[in-house]
């Protein structure tokens, strides 16, 4: 055979081999996923836990109602009214049992506060407590809620995030809530989807960050015109402004964002605060829709945006979640930001920002390496040790708009999303939905951390089988059993409570903190637990994930027969407290010394 013929055959073989690579990649490196359906006994045996959806059995039959906005938006109403389902955990009456607050988003609809009855059931007490009827005409509707004891009286107060008038309710010793918005001095209207309580200046009083989504001069029920959409799918800078409300201590708040160095018109969807830079002051991470994430480093009460330098603010995506987790048990927080992934259309991939070693604050995205990159149209996510094996797992809610299963809006979405700002920015230019779905009916993800650098999706096997349009996820040990339960708020769908049963053997420990010099909620306090040669860092949160807040109590899984060395608490005040002689399977209540 001539040399040229041999070469020709070789190049054809090479070409065929290259064509086969995508199939091989799909076949051999598919995300680790369990194939089996839910079987509680099998899940307990294999994964060490199982979930059972018990909302109805617990007396909760809440179904979220989406907002109906200005009729000018009718054609794309499913898209513009696609948020508002939220859930936050609070022990509002200090009885030692977590309660649940959920928001509703139709004008005239009621929010619900489900009081924990200690017997596996809940009772809605929002009406009698005065925090149900908060979606009245002319005031906008609820998008989320975060709880924090802003006046340090020992009871968690409620900040209501709205597309509309933001509201602050004072908790009157667990007996009732009093609306104190006007006294607080908040602006008349913010179209926000995210807020977080944190003490940014360490004065012992909780401050509040609120991230605007739509511009604050837009009344979504009475539009001047339809030019209220983002001016870019990836570089939008015409969103709502950001607010930093400094707590003055007398029920008044002063808006200090410009003074403190926070200025942005990106479309914020999620935020969370933690001391990431090691200064002792809480930094602020904001996940933005239609753009890059922002990391505001807190330099003793003054912020500067360092997203690009830190590596998290380079590639624009559709950020919808911020949650922190020490996934490698190394005493360092990684950050999970959810985005959009739709096969054949848009593969943004979720980000798992893992801190790099070294003095500079730098992150590297390890979502692909660890197997938590692709989660559909992802929304809220939370880290928690669901099987108490000592490794933080990850639950992800997803699914955007589930309408007609067989007709998709993706083509029309991509048609407009890639266009010029004058086209994308005007809702009138968007084709009508006409009942089509957009990344709907998606399976949730529950990634189990194997402790060896891989996450395996076990959602279907352990019982997280719903396909609602998931938005907010909150974690709490609802029944004080030492197991983290999962509470999911779904857009236009039911509130789900996945009760967690953990197989015997793995142990746990929980901490309930109360500040004295620090804010009384202890928000921002970081606990590092040392056991069996591991260390795991967790913190008390004033709001995280997407439109959610976990229980303030901190839960650690310990694995089998753990030997706990100590727990070290870094209080926001700067006090460092070490706890020795800790015993597993207990809840410790700790007061700041």
């Amino acid at each position, binding site marked *: 055979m001539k040399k040229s013929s041999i070469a020709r055959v070789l190049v054809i073989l090479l070409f065929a081999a290259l064509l086969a690579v995508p199939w091989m*990649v799909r076949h051999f490196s598919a995300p680790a996923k369990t194939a089996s359906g839910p079987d509680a006994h099998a899940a307990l045996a294999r994964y060490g836990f199982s979930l059972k959806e018990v909302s109805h059995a617990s007396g909760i039959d809440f179904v979220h109602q989406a907002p109906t906005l200005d009729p000018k938006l009718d054609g794309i109403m499913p898209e513009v009214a696609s948020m508002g389902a939220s859930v936050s955990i609070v022990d509002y009456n200090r009885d030692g049992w977590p309660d649940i607050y959920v928001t509703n988003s139709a004008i005239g609809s009621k929010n619900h506060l489900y009081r924990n009855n200690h017997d596996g059931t809940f009772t809605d007490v929002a009406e009698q407590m005065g925090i149900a009827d908060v979606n009245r005409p002319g005031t906008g509707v609820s998008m989320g809620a975060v709880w924090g004891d802003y006046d340090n009286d020992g009871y968690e107060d409620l900040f209501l995030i709205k597309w509309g008038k933001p509201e602050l309710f004072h908790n009157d010793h667990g007996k009732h809530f009093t609306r104190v918005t006007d006294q607080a001095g908040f602006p008349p209207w913010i179209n926000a989807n995210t807020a977080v309580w944190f003490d940014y200046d360490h004065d012992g009083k909780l401050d509040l960050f609120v991230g605007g989504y739509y511009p604050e001069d837009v009344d979504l029920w009475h539009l001047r015109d339809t030019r209220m959409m983002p001016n870019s799918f990836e570089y939008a800078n015409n969103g709502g402004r950001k607010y930093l409300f400094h707590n003055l201590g007398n029920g008044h708040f002063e808006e200090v964002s410009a003074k403190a160095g926070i200025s942005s018109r990106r479309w914020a969807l999620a935020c969370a605060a933690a001391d990431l830079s090691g200064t002792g002051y809480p930094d602020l991470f904001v996940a933005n829709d239609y753009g890059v994430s922002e990391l505001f480093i807190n330099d003793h009460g003054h912020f500067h945006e360092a997203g690009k330098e830190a590596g998290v603010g380079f590639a624009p995506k559709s950020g919808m979640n911020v949650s922190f987790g020490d996934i490698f048990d190394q005493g360092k927080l990684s950050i999970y930001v959810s985005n959009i992934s739709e096969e054949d259309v848009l593969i943004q991939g979720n980000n798992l920002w893992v801190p790099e070693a070294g003095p500079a604050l730098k992150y590297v995205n390890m979502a692909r390496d660890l197997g938590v990159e692709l989660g559909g149209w992802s929304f809220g996510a939370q880290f928690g040790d669901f099987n108490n094996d000592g490794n933080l797992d990850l639950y992800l809610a997803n699914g955007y708009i589930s309408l007609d299963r067989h007709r998709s809006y993706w083509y029309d979405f991509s048609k407009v999303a890639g266009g010029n*700002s004058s086209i994308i920015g005007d809702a009138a*230019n968007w084709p009508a939905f006409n009942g089509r779905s957009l990344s709907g009916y998606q399976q949730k993800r529950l990634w189990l951390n194997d402790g060896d650098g891989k996450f395996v999706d076990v959602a279907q096997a352990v019982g997280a089988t719903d396909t609602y349009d998931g938005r907010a996820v909150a974690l709490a040990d609802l029944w004080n059993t030492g197991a983290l339960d999962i509470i999911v708020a779904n857009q236009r769908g039911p509130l789900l409570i996945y009760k967690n049963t953990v197989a015997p053997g793995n142990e746990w420990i929980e901490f309930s903190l109360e500040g004295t010099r620090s804010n009384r909620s202890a928000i921002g306090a970081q606990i590092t637990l040392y056991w069996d040669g591991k260390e795991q860092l967790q913190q008390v949160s004033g709001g995280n994930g997407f439109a959610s807040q976990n229980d303030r109590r901190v839960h650690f899984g310990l694995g089998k027969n753990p030997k706990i060395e100590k727990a070290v608490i870094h209080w926001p005040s700067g006090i460092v407290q070490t706890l020795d002689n800790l015993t597993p399977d207990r809840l410790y209540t700790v007061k700041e010394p």
Partner: protein
Amino acid sequence: MSQPTAQQSPTQRGAEDKTPLKTGLSVPNFINPFLPPIFITLILLVGNLSFGILESYSKTLLAIATAIGMEMALGRIFLRKWPHPASSYITGISVGILLRSPAFWPYALCSALSITSKYALRFRGRHIWNPSNFGICTMLILASQAVAGLSIQWGNNLASLLVIWVLGSVIVWRAKRFHVTFTYVVCFIALSFLRAHITGDPWQSEISPITGPMYQLFIFFMITDPKTTVRSRLGRCLVAVAIAVLEFFFRLDSSIYAPLYALFWVGPAALLIQMMIDSRRARASLAPAASGAETVQI
């Protein structure tokens, strides 16, 4: 399928294409072989520094390195010389711009497929697919779980749009390919209104794609690729019309990457038709002589 040759006959390459670049996203070369790579690199750098258009520099560099490496290796084997790197550089950079994936391997694979297609898929000594169009379409079809095409980038604002349109127009004008771009754009706009009429969607939504970066690259640097377009001016216009018409139907079928797929089918078909016509003409021009010889014999 035949072996690539270093020199091609006038019937194999357009008479107007003096120094065509064998690329996918190709800038016709009219002054200097380094100018197109420099121009497209500038677009990339300005876009990335202004808007961060790339997933990362490293992925684009991987695409470029793979393309150049493959071209060098295959060129050495088949052409027995080191090919000029400008062509493969542009193929690599086009992959880096047009492909979107959070993973690294699709960039390397797409570049490798693009370059290899030039050597493996040949007809009468000529590669008939626009390399990066072939590579990207193949990836979109075979690796849809891992990649997407460029549909949203570059700030979506008027300034960047005007810069690209003006510079692109100047380049294709100087390269005598403006008629291709113009014909396609006119057809696209006309068919957009027809689609809007048929679907009932706002006409702005039908026009919208052509204001995006994928189309800017497509109309200036892909459908004008001299290596994979037909020779005559009228023929090129007809090909542009055919691409727009096939895209029209793909769009009615809600195909997101309609223009890329339309070029994928129309481009090779047009070249094959031209080759067929050329072949007939060649036979026809030889026929009288043969006939005359036969007459002499008789």
